């Protein structure tokens, strides 16, 4: 694929990453269904925003994520085997099995301080931004959060401090329309959260979260602005959570019409279809991509399965430095 012009190469790469994320989460659903993994949150349908934003970053940048982190981690290059091991509470996981699925951090990848307290990552992000800004250097901080997290006051406290102290933070709201079992229509009067930025003097943009190229372009512009000004930016990606909040989940409370409309806009399908239609990816290359992703997932699952549980003395290790 090296012959392709840059954007198309990027798009193929993004498609592969999105396929990997999709396959990972489907593996998780399957493992859970077979009683091999604890309940977990998937972000099926939201792959484009994770991949588009992370593609706009450099290795100096740090990422904060939350309970719905698989896309962010895998987009950043995380090993799906170590992720699955973590979800299964195995010692080979990124956190030695102590996190489980909900708060996976991978410092080596710059994915730091994951909190499953909704809003938690927003309160930590300003601190990471402060370190970055005091230590100098080019890196910025990206904080992923949901539309629900924007209902927590911490969202506002974080934006305000970042504005007042001029912290280099890209706030990325993945507005997936849902906040666990509650639709965002029940929790806010606007359709999104970007409208809050202006009162803090923060620039913002809203982007189609199911179009990875659009996300990538918006994120690239935002990151450039942050690197230039040192100021925060709020990017809102409009997307949809295609499965329930937590495995297992029956989605009985979801409006079937809304779900169907968004299923039509499945970002993995859309991108693949477009690349194939435009002749940028032929069917066999796509099939190979899919296969290699499946193979990686099988290896990952095998790694996780083979990884031992933590030793008993881990129970009280690493509480204190």
């Amino acid at each position: 694929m090296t012959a392709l012009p840059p954007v198309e190469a990027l798009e193929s790469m993004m498609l592969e990453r999105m396929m990997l994320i999709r396959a990972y989460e489907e593996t998780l659903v399957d493992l859970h269904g077979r009683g091999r993994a604890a309940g977990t949150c998937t972000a099926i349908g939201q792959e484009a925003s994770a991949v588009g934003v992370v593609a706009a970053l450099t290795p100096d940048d740090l990422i904060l994520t939350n309970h719905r982190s698989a896309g962010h981690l895998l987009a950043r290059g995380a090993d799906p085997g170590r992720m699955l091991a973590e979800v299964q509470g195995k010692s080979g996981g990124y956190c030695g099995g102590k996190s489980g699925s909900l708060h996976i951090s991978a410092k080596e990848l710059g994915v730091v301080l994951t909190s499953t307290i909704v809003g938690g990552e927003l309160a930590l992000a300003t601190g990471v931004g402060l370190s970055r800004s005091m230590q100098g250097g080019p890196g910025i901080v990206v904080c992923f959060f949901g539309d629900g997290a924007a209902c927590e006051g911490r969202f506002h406290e974080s934006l305000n401090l970042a504005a007042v102290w001029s912290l280099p933070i890209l706030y990325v709201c993945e507005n997936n329309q849902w906040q666990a079992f509650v639709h965002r229509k029940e929790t806010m009067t606007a359709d999104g959260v970007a409208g809050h930025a202006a009162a803090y003097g923060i620039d913002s943009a809203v982007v189609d979260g199911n179009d990875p190229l659009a996300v990538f372009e918006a994120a690239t512009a935002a990151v450039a602005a942050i690197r230039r000004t040192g100021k925060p930016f709020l990017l809102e990606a409009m997307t949809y959570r295609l499965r329930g909040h937590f495995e297992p989940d029956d989605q009985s409370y979801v409006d079937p019409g809304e779900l169907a409309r968004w299923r039509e806009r499945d970002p993995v399908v859309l991108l693949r279809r477009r690349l194939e239609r435009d002749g940028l990816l032929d069917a066999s290359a796509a099939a190979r991509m899919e296969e290699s992703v499946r193979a990686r997932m099988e290896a990952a699952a095998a790694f996780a399965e083979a990884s031992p549980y933590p030793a008993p003395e881990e129970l009280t290790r690493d509480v204190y430095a």
Partner: protein
Amino acid sequence: MTQMTVNDAISAALAEEMRRDPSVLIFGEGVATKRRDLLGEFGPARVRNTPLAEGIIAGTATGAAATGLRPVIDLLFAPFLCYAMDEIVNSAGKLRYVSGGQFEFPMVVLAMTGAGWGVGAQHNHNIESWFVHSPGLKVVMPSTPADFKGLLKAAIRDDNPVLVFADIALGYSAGEVPEDIDAIPLGQAALRREGDDVTLVSYAKTVGTCLAAADRLAEAGISADVLDLRSLKPLDEGAILRSVAKTGRLVVVHEASRLCGVGAEVAALVAEKAFASLRAPVLRLTGPDAPAPASFPLEQAFVPQADAVVAAVQSLVHGALAA
């Protein structure tokens, strides 16, 4: 008698109290989605979903309670109460006193905690002792479906803020619930088993652990009083002291961490008020001073097990620790 799970008992208590008193309402993140039956029966004004913001949920309950409503709020998991501490502790717990008795705060806060789901330390943290330590609050942590039903009913009728903690592992456990069970007064422990040699004091999931240990101890000729505190505040000091006066030995068992936990309070109480009866050191078996790990085997190891209770009691009765 009906067989009922803890979750069903909670639902039944809510429905009955909402029927009984039109000022009772319930809200929280997903409450109206998950409690369709209540929504159907009582309508959207009394069964509400909220925005995702525990602080304002608790503050709204506190303000509403002081002005004529009797709110029940579901804050989901105990660690999320960290976002609502001002409202629960500084407002609901203190403003009655601070105002010289001008206001009452008839409200209930529901939350889950405990090992069992592998959800890790930000969903599983047994912080009940914080609220026992704080003035103006009551704290309930039942172990059986019948108690969940009866104590939740009492909590809703109480004119003070009551925190009701549900051990996750108990949610789907079933038990007998009398058809006509009414409110069970807060502040009364339940003696689950009678014995003479040792008092096992516990609450929530580890009551079962103590009962299992008592079975095994009985085989070894040691008989145990097993006291289920049920209500942590008010604490049934009389029941604890009576039992220890009889047995002379005390082991307190809970999942919460040891330091400044409810076990510390029970042990200190006995060391003061039943000292003359004590024949052996007072032992506590508790969770370690560590966050709760997600990994299944570690999560299980976090919680005191029957083996350890048996060993502790044997050390008191026979072993090096006997006085």
